[in-house]
């Protein structure tokens, strides 16, 4: 059986586009895990709240970019508040306590969204509506824009981590919290800022993703599950690994959906997850310098 080349190319583009958004969500998740050993079960809800905040600003101003900026700032701030009030007091305790705390937070935020915004999905309109011809498809430019913007945000984070003064503080704290403190790095502040960055990245992906599927209170659930798979396959706390894993798994699912329905294609990710846990529990990819 041969696969038509055009179909293959379309699926490659689809895979990369979803992969980049997933990478954006997963890199926030892995960053937070790497520095605080906190598995943030509320990450999907930050993604969802970002999308809602974006949609509210979008409905009042009609400006997509303003909505994106407001969601990033607002949810980043919310992340800082959540970290100081909920997670900071639990630092150094059994990881189970932070899992329970963030899981509880996720339920609270989800039901808050349901109460505040109601069960009817909202829509954010894409800022560019054009299409281009890709073989027999009219492919929306917006999907490419999403991939490019996600890549740009991740690239910005990478540059900040590599060269920025605070990036060095974050990497030092990730490697050795105690010694970082002994070097005068305000570790509690670094934790709060990292959580805020992770939350802001989740919010950005929520707004970017909004036009593709609509905004509803449960949109975080589906996404966060996949983000967790990505983080485990890429290696917990390994930023580069998460990004590679996000693209790798999305491509795999895109190819699988040539033969089976997209809903069934998700199974491929779970198979990779199980194989990874069995044979490479520290992640598929060699640790990158952090």
């Amino acid at each position, binding site marked *: 059986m041969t696969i038509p080349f055009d179909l293959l190319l379309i699926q490659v583009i689809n895979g990369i586009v979803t992969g980049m958004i997933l990478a954006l969500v997963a890199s926030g998740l892995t960053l937070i895990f790497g520095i605080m050993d906190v598995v943030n079960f509320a990450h999907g809800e930050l993604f969802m709240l970002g999308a809602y905040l974006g949609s509210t600003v979008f409905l009042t101003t009609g400006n997509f970019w303003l909505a994106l900026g407001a969601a990033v700032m607002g949810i980043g701030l919310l992340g800082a508040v959540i970290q100081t009030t909920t997670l900071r007091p639990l630092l150094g305790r059994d990881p189970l306590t932070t899992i329970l705390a963030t899981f509880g937070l996720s339920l609270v935020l989800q039901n808050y969204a349901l109460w505040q915004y109601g069960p009817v999905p909202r829509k954010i309109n894409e800022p560019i509506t054009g299409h281009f011809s890709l073989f027999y498809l009219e492919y929306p430019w917006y999907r490419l824009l999403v991939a490019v913007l996600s890549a740009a945000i991740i690239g910005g984070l990478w540059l900040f981590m590599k060269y920025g*003064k605070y990036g*060095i503080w974050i990497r*030092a704290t990730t490697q050795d919290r*105690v010694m970082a*403190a*002994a070097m005068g790095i305000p570790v509690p502040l670094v934790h709060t800022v990292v959580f805020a960055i992770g939350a802001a990245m989740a919010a950005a992906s929520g707004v970017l993703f909004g036009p593709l599927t609509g905004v509803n209170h449960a949109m975080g659930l589906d996404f966060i599950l996949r983000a967790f798979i990505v983080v485990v396959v890429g290696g917990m706390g390994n930023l580069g690994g998460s990004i590679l894993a996000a693209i790798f798994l999305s491509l795999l699912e895109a190819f699988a959906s040539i033969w089976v329905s997209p809903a069934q294609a998700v199974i491929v990710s779970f198979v990779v997850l199980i194989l990874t846990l069995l044979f490479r529990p520290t992640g598929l990819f060699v640790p990158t310098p952090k």
Partner: protein
Amino acid sequence: MLSVQNVHTYYGKSHILHGVSIDVGPGEVVGLLGRNGVGKSTTLKTIMGLVRPSEGTITFEGRSVAGAAPYHLARLGIAYVPEDRRIFRLLTVLENLRTGLDRPGVPPERRDALLAKVYGSFPVLRERRNQAGGTLSGGEQQMLAIARAMMLEPKIILLDEPTEGLMPRMVAQIHEIIDVLHGDGVAILLVEQNVRLTLEVSSRVYFMEKGVVRHHAPAADLRRNDAVIHQYLGV
């Protein structure tokens, strides 16, 4: 300048320090000797705020600092070079130095001068500045740990067994750098197993046994009469 009075420290339920008292004057090099497991390292960790004392007072330049956060103490002018060096292994040598250099209120000229100074004392660090800290040899890591502490422009350095596992040439270099720091007016609280080095560089020496200070004498006296050293260290 640094005054530790009757400090008690626990690790969980085990009582490690049973009332330790130590004083270090401005610019003074003070040795802390004792057998393994008597609480020398714990004393340094307690001063640095890495372990919380349950009792006793620690004052630095007149202000009480017992139980203060380590990053606060670092900003006040206390630097810590731990026994296991604790280099940030995945950071480059320069990035390791920048963890101490990138603090608020250090103008660019001052940064350059500080870097030039440690590169002058440890030329190997300049050569390896873009290499990951984890790839350095043990001796080079020790140099980096001391250089990193110097980036804080500390008033006192807590130095935990800097010569452990080093070859004689490296030990001589550590000796040299302690002299340089002393010349710059930096106080040092030195925990060591190397008795000769400690007696050479220190002005006073404390002896610890089972979590308390048993004896305290000027290094000059100990150099003349080593009976005390036999008594507490069994060497």
